[in-house]
């Protein structure tokens, strides 16, 4: 591992739980602002948050709207990885996802987490 810090943030809650869906984006936003490499991993209902048009519909009280956070995280270099079986089981394909989202399998998540400075699971 080099000197560059990396944070992996796993997201498992979807738009039905706005606060638990938004907190990982708030953390990711603060991390990219702090020059920390950020990888967000979406599993379970969390993968619905990177379906096109969904993030813009999620706002938790007293938090920045999720859509704007997602946009800023990507703008500042954050990576978005989504679980392949989770996407397939929800009838989604790459075309349905926010641009730049990468569909990956378990070993990629393991590689990202084990090479990170730290990881958070929501």
């Amino acid at each position, binding site marked *: 591992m080099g000197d560059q810090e990396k944070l992996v943030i796993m997201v498992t809650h979807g738009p039905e739980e706005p606060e638990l869906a938004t907190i990982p984006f*708030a953390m990711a*936003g*603060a991390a*990219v*602002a*702090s*020059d920390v490499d950020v990888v967000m991993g979406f599993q379970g209902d969390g993968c619905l948050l990177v379906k096109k048009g969904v993030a813009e519909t999620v706002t938790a009280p*007293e*938090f*920045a709207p999720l859509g*704007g*956070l997602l946009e*800023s995280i990507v*703008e*500042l270099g954050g990576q978005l990885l989504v679980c392949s079986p989770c996407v397939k089981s929800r009838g989604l394909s790459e075309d349905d996802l926010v641009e730049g989202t990468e569909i990956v399998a378990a070993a990629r998540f393991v590689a990202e987490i084990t090479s990170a400075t730290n990881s958070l699971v929501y």
Partner: protein
Amino acid sequence: MTTILNETDLSTLTAAKIVDARGAACPGPLLEAKKAMGGISVGDVLELWSSDSQTKNDVAAWAGKVGHEFLGVASTDGYERVFVRRAK
């Protein structure tokens, strides 16, 4: 680095850029500060306006981590003006 100036000293600063993040919730003001910092020169001062009372603490922690100089905060009617000098 943190160099806390009093409000009189802060009032003498000329900001290279003012970011109005009033109304934005956590971590919106911080993200706005991050984006704006890239648009000013090393040594210049960024002034961030926020109505979120935690922004000054968030920005102070952020500046300390990334290596900018947190200069202080001035209270204004209904919001705070947070000053940071770009140091790298």
